[in-house]
């Protein structure tokens, strides 16, 4: 019997994503990959995959999938309602599922994106070195498009490797923050000190114009000191462009590669996952950090992710000797959610 996941309902926007496709930005092709690469790596670690393994990125409303394999091990990273054959199931832990069972990912409770990883990975051919779906280029995933009802995702492993289930400790579960830290530049000299101070004092609302390419914000207009046309230059993930309207746009994984508006600041790598999780309607603030601090935070996040498999393994013994801890995990997470909104 082959092993697959069958798409019963695709949700709002579900795509196959890994950590992105690099080396083609000089040809206008942005990396794409998971908008929240941090959550993708957590999902992969929970099922014992390599961090860059392809998984399913779900947006606001998750997908419903049928298990068409003797068994499979799955984990979902993201604050979404989850059920397996109608029984509530926890995010941030792995689950052993069996043939014919239905995994239903519901709505995002807090946040915007979630990642479903399968032990062993998805059996999809890489295009230009990656399985990441790039919607505009029609690359990666399934024919470069979002999933549809009836799609069948073949799995690499017919049966999951034996082993215990893993769960992220409550303290390790990412909490949403409405504060994005940035490094100023590259074109902060297009704005005067007052405009920059106003930007950091302001609260911006994520508009409905938010997708894998970027998110347009509504709020106080940032005035340009010397026009708003720059000679197009390269954009990075996290670039904050300020077009003529004065309302900033944060560029995300499937962004354009170049842009002709001044880029006031850049969301730091360690906070890109927070940008990825801000749903339309969320109120965001920005705070400046210096380059050294941004680099320190980047290194800390990379080290945290790198140490995850080890921590998950060493947590096993303690967790399985203390079944109450699983219950506590949900409780703690519920309290933290409420406290995270400013």
């Amino acid at each position, binding site marked *: 019997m082959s092993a697959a996941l069958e798409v019963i309902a695709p949700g709002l926007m579900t795509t196959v994503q890994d950590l992105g496709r*690099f*080396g*083609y*930005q*000089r*040809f*206008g*092709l942005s990396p794409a990959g998971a908008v929240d690469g941090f959550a993708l790596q957590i999902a992969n670690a929970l099922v014992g995959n390599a961090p860059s393994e392809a998984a399913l990125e779900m947006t606001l409303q998750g997908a419903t999938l049928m298990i068409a394999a003797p068994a499979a091990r799955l984990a979902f990273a993201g604050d979404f309602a989850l059920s397996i054959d109608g029984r509530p199931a926890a995010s941030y832990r792995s689950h052993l599922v069996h043939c014919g069972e239905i995994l239903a990912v519901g709505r995002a409770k807090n946040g915007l994106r979630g990642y479903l990883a399968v032990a062993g990975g998805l059996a999809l051919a890489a*295009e*230009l070195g990656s399985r990441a779906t*790039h919607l*505009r*280029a*029609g*690359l990666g995933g399934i024919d*470069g498009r979002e999933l549809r009802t009836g799609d069948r995702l073949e799995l690499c492993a017919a049966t999951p490797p034996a082993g215990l289930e893993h769960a992220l400790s409550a303290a390790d579960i990412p909490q949403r923050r409405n504060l994005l830290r940035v*490094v*100023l*530049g*590259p*074109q902060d000299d297009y704005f005067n000190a007052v405009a920059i101070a106003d930007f950091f004092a302001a609260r911006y609302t994520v508009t409905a114009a938010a997708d894998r390419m970027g998110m347009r914000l509504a709020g106080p207009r940032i005035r340009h000191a010397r026009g708003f046309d720059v*000679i*197009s*230059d*390269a954009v*990075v993930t*996290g*670039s904050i462009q300020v077009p003529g309207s004065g309302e900033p746009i944060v560029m995300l994984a499937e962004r*354009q*590669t*170049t*842009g002709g508006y001044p*880029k006031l600041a*850049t*969301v*730091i*790598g360690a906070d890109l996952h927070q940008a990825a999780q801000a749903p339309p309607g969320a109120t965001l603030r920005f705070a400046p950090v210096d*380059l050294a601090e*941004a*680099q320190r935070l*980047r*290194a800390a996040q*990379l080290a945290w992710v790198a140490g995850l498999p080890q921590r998950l393994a060493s947590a096993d013994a303690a967790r399985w000797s203390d079944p109450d801890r699983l219950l506590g995990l949900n409780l703690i997470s519920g309290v933290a959610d409420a406290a995270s909104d400013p």
Partner: protein
Amino acid sequence: MAVYGAPRFLNAGEAALVVEIGDSIAAEISERVAMLESALGAAAIAGVGETVPTYRSLLVNYDPAVIDTEGLIVRLRALWPPTGSLAAPRHWIVPVAYGGSFGEDLDEFARRKAMMPEAVVERHLAGHYRVYMVGFMPGFTYLGGLDPELALTRRDVPRTLTPAGSISIGGIQTAISSIAAPSGWHLLGRTPVRAFDKRRDPPFLFNTGDLISFERIDAATWRELAEAAAAGEPVARPVPPS
């Protein structure tokens, strides 16, 4: 219009540096960006990742855990001004059908420039173009070298969808589009060439620094070449180096 005496180094976050080397869109600056990129590649600096050349700057992605920003700037300064010669550029002849359904703005463009449509086409065909940048979207090819007489600010209302292969003018630039996309540029014609086709090897045809000449074709030839392009042929013809 000038190359700076020394580059400006601008942070694009904590892991990318914009090396800005000039203040305008010009062949000399574009060539200097290419030379800097080439010199940086040859220097093989540990921690330097993907580089992205644009009109007047080079984006250098780097791993700050391997090379610190100041150290990278020191290395980049040492490469300035870049010396050494670039490999001879590739030169492509790109077939284009102008006007009518292939370039629906040609007549209006000519009217606004107080020229005959044929004169617009002739001037566009006479140009020697250089790829200044491939960017924005996959394969979108920005060309420098447009006859200043053909410069025209972009349309007031951008089109929500323009066809792949559009040959257009926006300001002082002309471009070859690669995939259907919104655009505010004036559509003069259309090429059957696919600047990006994932099934073809290589998937991207044009690179920064390539030279481009346009060749006029009729509707029948366009359709014939479009079929060849769909079958994976480049259709753009390389000019052998002289």
